C-alpha cells in the first residue's frame, strides 16, 4: 500500500469517527431538552396565568387581595386623600423615582403585586409611616402608590400587566 493511499484512507476513517461522534453528541443533547423542559410551567399552570377580578363590590378605601400566579395581588380602591398623598411627593427624592400616573390606569384603582421587592415577604396593608404598606420582615415602608419610601427594599412594588375589561372587571395577566 502506497503512503498516499494510506493517509487518504486514514482521513476517511477519521471522518467517519467524527461523524459518529457528532451524531452521538446531537443525540445526547436532543435527549436532554425534554428532561429540562419538563420543569417549565405546565399547560394547566399556564392556563391560569390570566384571571378576571370583579371590583364592583370594592368600596372606597377598601382593598382586596387575590391570588395570581401563586402570588398575592393587592387591588386598592383609593380615596381622593390617598391619591393626593401619592401625588404630593417630590418624585426626584424617592429611592425608585416614579410618578403616580405611571403606576395606575385609573387613579382610583391601584393594582400591585403584593410581594416586597426586598426578599419576597408579603407587606401588610394600611400600615407604616407612609399609610401604604409595611413589610414586617425587614421594615420596608411603601406609600399609597406602592412606592418604596424607607427601608431596605430597592424598588417600588411591582405593577402586574392588566387591563380594565369594563368598569367592574379587571383582566390580569
Amino acid at each position, binding site marked *: 500500500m502506497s503512503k498516499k493511499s494510506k493517509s487518504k484512507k486514514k482521513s476517511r*476513517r477519521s471522518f467517519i469517527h467524527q461523524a459518529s461522534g457528532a451524531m452521538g453528541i446531537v*443525540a445526547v443533547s436532543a435527549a436532554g431538552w425534554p428532561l429540562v423542559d419538563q420543569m417549565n410551567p405546565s*399547560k394547566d399552570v399556564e392556563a*391560569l396565568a390570566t384571571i378576571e377580578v370583579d371590583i364592583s363590590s370594592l368600596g372606597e378605601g377598601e382593598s382586596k387581595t387575590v391570588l395570581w400566579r401563586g402570588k398575592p395581588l393587592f387591588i386598592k380602591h383609593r380615596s381622593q386623600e390617598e391619591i393626593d398623598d401619592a401625588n404630593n411627593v417630590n418624585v426626584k427624592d424617592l429611592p425608585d423615582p416614579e410618578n403616580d400616573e405611571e403606576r395606575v390606569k385609573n387613579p382610583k384603582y391601584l393594582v400591585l403585586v403584593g410581594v416586597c421587592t426586598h426578599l419576597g415577604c408579603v407587606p401588610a396593608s394600611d400600615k407604616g409611616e407612609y399609610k401604604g404598606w409595611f413589610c414586617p420582615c425587614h421594615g420596608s415602608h411603601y406609600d399609597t402608590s406602592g412606592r418604596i419610601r424607607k427601608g431596605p427594599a430597592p424598588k417600588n412594588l411591582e405593577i402586574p400587566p392588566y387591563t380594565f375589561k369594563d368598569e367592574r372587571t379587571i383582566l390580569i395577566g
Partner: protein
Amino acid sequence: MKNFIIIFLLFSYTLNLFSAEEALKPEQYNFSFSKPLGKINKNSAQRGLQVFIEVCASCHGLKHVAYRSLEELGYNKDQVNSIAAQFQIDDLPNEEGEILKRKAIYSDYFVEPYKNLNEAKTANNGAYPPDLSLMVKARKDGANYVRSLLLGYNEPPSGFDVGEGYYNKYMAGNVIAMPQPLYGDDVEFSDGTKATLEQEVNDLVTFLTWTSMPDLENRRAAGIKVIFFLLVMTILFYISYRKIWSELKT
C-alpha cells in the same frame, strides 16, 4: 430447534384467533388516524365534539380534558370560551361559604354530569356511565371497538334474556346497560355534513381518540424524525465499528 420456536409462535397466534371470547371482534374501519402516520381529522373531531356535547355529555364525563386543550382541534380562544360557557361549574366558596355555580371557562376541565358515583349509579339503574376521556385507550382496539359498539345494537336472538340491558354483539357478554344512544339525525352539523348514524359515530370516535391520546400527532411527527436520526446513527456507528475492528485483523 429455532424453526420449532417460529412454528410455536405461529401456532400460538392462530390459537389466539380461535380463543375468541363471546364478544365479536370489532369491525376494522379506516380512520384518518388508523395508519401509523395518520392524523386526527380536525373537522371530524369538531363534529364529534358536537355529538359528545349534545348527546353523550348528559351522562358521560370527560374529566381529564380541559376546555383549553380544544384549541388543538382548531378552535380559537373565544370559541373555546363559548363552548365552555355552555357548562355550569361549581365556583369557589364565596365570602359566606356558599358554593354557587358559574359558567365554565377556558382553564376549566369538562364538567362532570353527576356530582358523584352514587348519583350516577342511581340515575342509571345501578350501572354508572364511565368517563370517556380515556375510553379509546381503555379498550382493546379501542377506536374500532367504540365504533362497532355504537353501531352494534340489534334485536336479541330469540330466547336470549337481556334482563334490564340491551343486546349488543360487540359487548362482552352481549348485554350492555346503555340504551342505544345514537340513531342518526341526533344533531345538526354546522358544516352541513349529513348526520347519518355512521357519520356521527365516526366523528365521535375521532374526537374520543383525540381525548384519549392528545399526544398522538406530536408523537408521530417527532417519532419519524427520531427514528430517521437513529437509523443514520446506527449505520454510522456500524461503519465506525467495522473500521476500528478491521485494524485488529491486519
